[in-house]
């Protein structure tokens, strides 16, 4: 009696989840109105990548960042479908994509959320395209796994309509997120409480030193050069950097240099070296004097 009850409950649950999955497929919200361009990130890019992969044009990871791989895939798609080849996902390209491919938003989002290594080629069983080991147990249909799957699917349905963060980020050529983090630490330690341009200027000085022949040739070499930065000597570099330090570093890497190509800066009230005063000054930002 009890077994029958559980069985019925299970069937109902499975049916319900199937229903919700199919309705979900029909409710798939297509692309937004924006033209998607190289370098963009976000939901639309995830959909673009998934649809291009479904059609076999895109072989990279579906990560929500429009990189070079996506760019060439889109161009090839445009070429094959007789569209203007410009590498921009505009109105026409998106319409053609929507017609030619399916987009299982729930599947994709779930994969990204779980951090799985997955693909989304059309015509291949999705279970075979993911490394998710929880899914591979389904040949052993005991109650436990079934229940698990149902709850999983319920969870995924609940969260489908939320926006999902891309699983990758853009980084400037030649730098990684970790390099940016080290620099942000140094900038925060050195220029806490300075105006934003003062922070960018300090980050720019670090980069100018990397370029200069009289300083070490790496970011970490410059930052950790003994006695070069007081914040490094007294450990303030390990304070938690705030958001603006990170943005300042990114700006400096992208070319902003309010210091005027300085390679030295000092606070005239606390400077301990007389020699530093002999450098030609460029300008003063906040409390720091920038010099070469």
């Amino acid at each position, binding site marked *: 009696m009890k077994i029958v009850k559980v069985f019925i409950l299970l069937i109902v649950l499975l049916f319900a989840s199937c229903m919700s999955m199919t309705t979900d497929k029909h409710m798939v919200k297509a692309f937004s109105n*924006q033209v998607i361009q190289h*370098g963009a990130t976000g939901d639309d890019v995830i959909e673009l990548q998934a649809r291009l992969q479904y059609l076999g044009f895109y072989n990279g990871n579906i990560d929500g960042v429009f*990189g070079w791989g996506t760019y060439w895939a889109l161009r090839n798609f445009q070429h094959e479908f007789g569209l203007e080849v410009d590498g921009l996902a505009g109105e026409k390209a998106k319409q053609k994509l929507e017609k030619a491919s399916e987009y299982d938003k729930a599947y994709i989002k779930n994969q990204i959320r779980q951090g799985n290594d997955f693909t989304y080629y059309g015509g291949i069983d999705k279970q075979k395209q993911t490394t998710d080991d929880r899914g591979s147990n389904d040949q052993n249909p005991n109650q436990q796994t079934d229940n698990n799957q149902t709850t999983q699917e319920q969870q995924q349905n609940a969260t489908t309509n939320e926006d999902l963060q891309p699983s990758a980020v853009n980084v400037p050529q030649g730098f990684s997120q970790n390099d940016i983090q080290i620099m942000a630490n140094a900038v925060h330690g050195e220029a806490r409480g300075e105006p934003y341009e003062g922070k960018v200027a300090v980050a720019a000085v670090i980069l100018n030193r990397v370029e200069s022949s009289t300083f070490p040739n790496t970011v970490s070499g410059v930052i950790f050069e003994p006695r070069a930065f007081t914040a490094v000597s007294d450990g303030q570099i390990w304070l938690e950097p705030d958001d603006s330090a990170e943005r300042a570093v990114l700006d400096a890497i992208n070319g902003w240099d309010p210091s005027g190509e300085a390679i030295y800066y000092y606070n005239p009230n606390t400077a*301990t070296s007389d*020699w530093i005063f002999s450098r030609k*000054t460029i*300008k003063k930002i906040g409390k720091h004097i920038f010099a070469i």
Partner: protein
Amino acid sequence: MFRWVVIGVLSIGLIGVSIWGYQEHQEKNEVMIQAENAYQRSFHDLAYHLDLLHDKIGSALAMNSRERLSPQLVEIWRLTSQAHGDVGQLPLAFVPFNKTEEFLSQMGDFSYRTAVRDLDQKPLNDEEIETLESLYEMSGEIEKEIRSVQNLVLKDQLRWMDVQLALANKDEPGDNTILDGFQTVENKVEGYSEGKIHSSLMGTSSKEDSYQMIKGDKFNQSDAKQKMREILGINQEINLNIEKTGEGAKVSMYSGSFQTDKKSGYLDITEQGGYPVTVMINRTVDRTNVSLHEATQKAKTYLNKLDFNDLALVESNQYDHVGVFHFVPNNEDVWVYPDAIQVKVALDNGNVIGMVAKDYLENHGERDIPKPTISEKEAREVVNPNVEIQDHHLAVIEDDTGVEVLTYVFLGVKNQDTYKIFVNAENGTEERVERLKQKEVKYEKRKR
């Protein structure tokens, strides 16, 4: 009775504190010794590398066979870079030792450039031999001085930690044997760098024609302020601080800054002509309403308003809710890479929140862009056949020595990676190959 208990407790306390103090002292000593050892290692490495460097330059000069000369020059290049690295690990920042460091890096550049050259085709000329001779002499001097400092360090057991103390102590600077020794080295090098070495060979010749496009009247402070308000789009009610750059600036500029409740801003304009060099607006941007594509158009319109026209978009990137765009001038279908302009657009309302035109103002000007002497097809054959070429354009770039050359730029794919390949449009040499990497798997951040 009570007295004895108090005495007992106090003496136990005293013993406890003494033990704790002693342990702390021991630990501090250990850390000091480790730091000292790290310095000593770098210093003795430096002495050794400089010694070896002198030897190698000497043998390069005595060498007759060209097959051996190239590897020898490579060896010199490696040693200069190592010695440079050693210097970077010693507490010599803010110590006048930069002439010596400059020497090391110039020496490195020189040996690298001659080492990669085909010496069978183009053997070292007289000028270069002469330069190498004087580099030999100079490295000999440096070696000698550093060796004598090293001897003093060993003989008198001098500590680098004392150098650090001497430097930290503002009142009696320079009274340190090691520092004196390094000062002597610096003075010797300074004496040499005047004259004897052909600066054109050492890559020290600075660009003479920079900022040649900057024309027009000199702005005074109030004119500059007016110009700044125009560029920033702010009215008289917002207070604008303005300052002029000092003598260290490459080109004389005015810097302006303002601060309101919601945002702050900063910009540089040139004194002559009032050209905008840097513009920065700092405010919170926490949502994306505008697509990157739309933002590109906004960036272009903004630049056109500032009289920067005919631009090609080289790169666009979205960082959180901000778009960053790299433009270069498109001069009759030739992209001029050295004249880059960057623009930053907030994706919440599509307003421009940053611009840099430093490279543009510094390099832009009248250019005689030659016609390519080889065809695109011929250039294509130079590219590695495993790279599938997807796109191409003509471009002016700066080569390794800082000279502008006309190139075909090919964008190609090999396996999953995209490459930018620059092929000289006049002689077909492969000037540069860049692997384009732009995204990275997102790492988890420290919890805030």
